[in-house]
């Protein structure tokens, strides 16, 4: 078995007394695509920022039983090493392309930033490579657009520029943090295809963070479902759709809009008005199957290839 690109176990991120992520594990092999699914505030992005050591030391306390990125212990290495890993070993695509690009820097320079830093290219060589990267991500006349500022691009185009920046360091792991959420549906489909194609072509590991479970089909191999900072279910994507184990996953799948006839099946109790439980299973207050044992947090139970944290599986 090849070495894991990302080997994370028991990750916990605290902001003061708030625990945003607790006991989250994630394992990504080269060429593997994993979806990290959860509603907003479930700790998806927070967990991914921890992978690159991007939480400012003062504001967040990050601990883990194991947090290794391509063999490097992220929690132990000095900032220098982290800077060297960022962009080169793992790169990130952010949710909102309108705010994630430097508005006062031409896009060519922003792409070249990575090339100069990580591949020791000269200015002109970096610019040539940057224009090639722009064409790779589907921006015509890359060379002619290097001097343009982000404001000269549409949202979808800017996200392509973000992807070019992320690819520039030839990372082995790509973390896409809701890369299509801010875009409209047609652009979204194109970008999903683009990212998926590039990932397969280059054999990168991919973590796709999203709140949209429907988007995951055909994009990722495995899905990890988060709720209130905890892993609820971790399963191959086909199994997850065919045989969801956790009541939360079931509720998520039922909430997807369908074209089938019949009354909508979104349940009244499955609303954000119900706060996650602080102790035990966080989903218990919204769960239709809740019983006494839910006051304690269940471990991950295995059931025919899927893992789910639910006492129902203990029977």
């Amino acid at each position, binding site marked *: 078995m090849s070495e894991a690109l990302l080997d994370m176990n028991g990750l916990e991120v605290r902001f003061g007394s708030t625990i945003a992520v607790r006991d989250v594990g994630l394992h990504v092999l080269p060429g593997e695509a994993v979806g990290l699914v959860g509603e907003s505030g479930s700790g998806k992005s927070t967990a991914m920022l921890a992978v690159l050591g991007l939480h400012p030391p003062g504001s967040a306390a990050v601990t883990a039983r194991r947090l290794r990125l391509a063999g490097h212990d992220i929690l132990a290495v000095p900032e220098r090493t982290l*800077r060297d890993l960022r962009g080169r070993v793992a790169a990130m695509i952010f949710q909102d392309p309108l*705010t994630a690009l430097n508005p006062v820097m031409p896009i060519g320079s922003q792409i070249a930033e990575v090339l100069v830093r990580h591949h020791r290219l000269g200015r002109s060589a970096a610019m040539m490579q940057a224009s090639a990267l722009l064409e790779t991500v589907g921006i015509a006349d890359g060379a002619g657009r290097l001097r343009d500022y982000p404001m000269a691009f549409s949202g979808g185009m800017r996200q392509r520029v973000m992807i070019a920046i992320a690819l520039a360091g030839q990372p082995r792991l790509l973390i896409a943090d809701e890369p299509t959420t801010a875009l409209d549906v047609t652009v979204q489909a194109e970008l999903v295809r683009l990212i998926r194609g590039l990932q397969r072509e280059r054999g990168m590991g991919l973590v796709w963070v999203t709140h949209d479970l429907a988007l995951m089909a055909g994009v990722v191999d495995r899905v990890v479902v988060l709720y209130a900072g905890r892993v609820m279910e971790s399963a191959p994507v086909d199994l997850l759709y065919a045989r969801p184990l956790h009541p939360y996953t079931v509720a998520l799948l039922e909430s997807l809009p369908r074209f089938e006839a019949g009354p909508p099946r979104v349940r009244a109790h499955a609303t954000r008005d119900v706060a996650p439980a602080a102790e035990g299973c966080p989903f218990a207050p919204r769960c239709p199957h809740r019983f006494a044992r839910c006051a304690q947090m269940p471990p991950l139970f295995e059931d025919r290839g899927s893992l789910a944290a639910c006492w129902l599986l203990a029977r």
Partner: protein
Amino acid sequence: MRVRSWLGVAGALLLALAVLAALLAPLIAPYRPMQLDLRARLAPPAWLVHGSTRHLLGTDNVGRDILSRLIWGTRISLSVGASAALLGAVVGSTLGLCAGFFGRRIDAAISWAIDVQLAFPFTLFALFLLAVFGGGFLPVVGVLALATWVNFARVVRAQAEVLRTQDFILAARSIGVPTPRILVRYVLPAALPSIVVVGSFSAAQAMLTEAALSFLGVGVDPTTPSWGAMLELGRNYLQTAWWMAAFPGLAIAWVVLGANLLGDWLRIRLDPRGGALR
């Protein structure tokens, strides 16, 4: 907006004339600034009785030509103003950038220094420093920068604090851009318009303070024709030769007004919300 931009042009024009006078002083000043004409002491301006076209704005108590001294004095006023603003901009922007971006202890330390500086009666402090350590061009610029850096530090700190949590800073960090480079290439450019605006106000403030210091006798150098020193000298002759004090006073008002009008206009012009940034 219309009126504002007209005033801005007027301010720029006032300053441009002053700069021109400073640059061309040896060519356009009728006399050397120190040249005495003892027979024409306290000569009134040309348009008054007993005035003569030899001394357009009159002479002082030892017969030095007021107009020539004003023209040469432009050099002192502008160079001190610009240098103090520049030095303050470099020091203040750097500290403000660090305070706003790093926050926490660094911010606490720098903000404390800003508060102390603002709470101090500055002119008294400057007077003390210059009296103890002596005057001269560099000491005066240094002391004035002590007053101007605060303006830059406050504005840049506020901007850096907002920018630090922006996505594009996080994105830059996620590709391994080192912090000093983030400060210079990502944060500073966004604060630059504000720095320019504060710069013009600070230059006005520095020129005014320089005149005050010269007036109090701790200015650049007693032998150089500084407007403040001329004003002080003229104070003794207000009853008999009002022109000795009036014209230096007008000159000070001239450049300070110019810098303030320009600054006011830049403030509106460079406001990102005005959409005229690029």
